[in-house]
């Protein structure tokens, strides 16, 4: 009897020890730094905090970040659906190679991703002279930033959709076809509603990464203030200039974006669960 009580006590001790360790770790490495961002940003008062955004370079960095996300996310959404569809619903040669290729942006360091674009489109690059002849600028300009962002964020939507589409199979689509639906009707009335929550989840993650990407964008951007600076790059510049308060203010923007993303993500997760469980 006593042994049993002891054992129960030991089990509950273990439980709390584990929870304590996990929470402590989270607090030390995630919560404290997050709080630090906001406390540094607000150190010199709320007025200076907002003043940090009232700066032409800061505004242009915010604008460029939004534009980049606005271009790369829809592109990755459309191609993500296409690729996921092909992989989940058809059997073809080289399917495994395609799946591996999709994962490359996750596996490769973003710096290398950026370098690839410099090597391809830079003035010394493969298409350099060709682009120069047409007077097109990709590297150290907005198109380069968009390209690098697309590359880095490509897997998010596809990866989210493949398992979902595989699990759903093709029976509902076949049923739609036997009932006389054409390809578009089948997609918009049957396929899309079935994947909408997974798609939204992928898109949210994609947006977060598109806005926060530093490595790849840093390589191709050239850091031209007011022209090719995104929020993460602007944070770095401000920081290097010892303008800590402004750097943290900009950083707090990205942090808030992350928090909003997490909130949306859990909302969508909850919705997805409800949808899946509800049949």
């Amino acid at each position, binding site marked *: 009897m006593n042994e049993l009580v002891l054992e129960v006590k030991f089990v509950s001790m273990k439980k709390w020890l584990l929870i304590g360790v996990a929470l402590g770790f989270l607090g030390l490495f995630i919560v404290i730094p997050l709080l630090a961002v906001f406390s540094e940003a607000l150190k010199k008062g709320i007025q200076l905090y907002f003043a940090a955004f009232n700066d032409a370079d800061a505004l242009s960095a915010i604008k460029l970040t939004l534009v980049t996300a606005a271009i790369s996310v829809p592109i990755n959404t459309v191609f993500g659906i296409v690729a996921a569809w092909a992989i989940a619903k058809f059997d073809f040669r080289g399917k495994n190679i395609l799946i591996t290729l999709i994962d490359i942006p996750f596996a490769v360091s973003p710096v290398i991703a950026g370098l690839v674009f410099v090597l391809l489109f830079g003035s010394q690059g493969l298409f350099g002279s060709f682009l120069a002849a047409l007077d097109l600028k990709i590297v150290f300009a907005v198109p380069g930033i968009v390209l690098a962002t697309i590359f880095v964020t490509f897997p998010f939507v596809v990866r989210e959709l493949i398992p979902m589409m595989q699990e759903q199979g093709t029976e509902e689509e076949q049923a739609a*076809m*036997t009932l006389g639906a054409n390809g578009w009707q089948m997609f918009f009335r049957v396929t899309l509603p079935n994947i909408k929550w997974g798609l939204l989840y992928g898109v949210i993650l994609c947006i977060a990464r598109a806005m926060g990407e530093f490595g790849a964008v840093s390589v191709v951007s050239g850091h031209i203030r007011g022209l090719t600076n995104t929020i993460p790059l602007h944070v770095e510049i401000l920081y290097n200039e010892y303008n800590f308060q402004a750097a943290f203010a900009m950083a707090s923007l990205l942090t808030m974006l992350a928090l909003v993303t997490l909130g949306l993500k859990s909302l969508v997760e909850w919705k997805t669960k409800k949808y899946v469980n509800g049949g």
Partner: protein
Amino acid sequence: MGISLKEVTKEFGTFRAVDNITLDIPTGDFTALLGPSGSGKTTLLRLIAGLEKIDAGTILLNGSDFSAKTVRERKVGFVFQHYALFKHMNIFDNIAFGLKVRPRKQRPSKKEITEKVMELLKLVQLEHTASRYPSQLSGGQRQRIALARALAIEPEVLLLDEPFGALDAKVRQELRHWLREIHQKLNITTLFVTHDQEEALEMADTIVVMNHGRVEQIGPPEEVYQNPANAFVYSFLGRVNELRGAALRGYLGNTIPNGDEVGYIRPHEIGLNRTLKGSSVPAEVSHVTKVGSTVRIDLKRLDLGHIFEAEMSTEKYRELGPVQKGDILYADLNHIVIFNGKNNTTQPVLENKTLRAAYL
């Protein structure tokens, strides 16, 4: 002519799923495609629907060539084993789908669609479910809705792929009767796939028995059951005891055995007696099972040692008196049907129904 297949073949890689099938199904017929899994019955159904492309041959529906037509052009009603209802739509929208996706010119008005859907819901006796979602219905209800959805487009042919395969025994029984009634009411040419011989025998006007991508026999249920064309059909339809080699000695008549003969006898065709009668063989009872109104007795032949099963009604069993494990009974195997086992598609070599062969 309802559905007409001419030399239809379908291969998946090197596997020939449907092998040169020629088949005619008259208008208004209720036909079962019966066969074990892998016999090509579902593939054949999907070929008719256009969900798979044929490799060779032609498919005619009501006289016109459908071989090259797409799924949407064929306008066949298709019911899937796992219902394939649209889970994000309510029941009303599920049934209305086929009407709503029509090109604008052929699309009925909203009022007409509503009327049609309610009429179909009435037909499948599920009017109260219109605003529910598929997940809120039972398996049997979902399959009824799937049928209503298929009927909404007024198909000329109705194809059902193992429609009751995912349902429990009781619901399956109810739906069988119900589907027959619907067929009688609408008289649509109907083709359904099943691996359940009882289902095929009970429901169909015509049974097409398939094996290895080929048709083994076509005919009304009684004919297929009473006069199986070959050993496969005999063994697939109903319970059988299979006898080979020495067990057939004495039943082969004048034919010279070549070792490939195989004999079949249905459990209910075996007569059991307490005393030796004519050519009966002695056997020891190893197990007695009572299933509803029938009694199944497992026996072991004393002379050859192989095990077989006999079946009788409870009345007959009462006449025989209580049987216990270890009892010795005499089994009359004269109804044995013998096929040449080398080629399963040959006619029976010998029917022993009239033969009075002496046992050894």
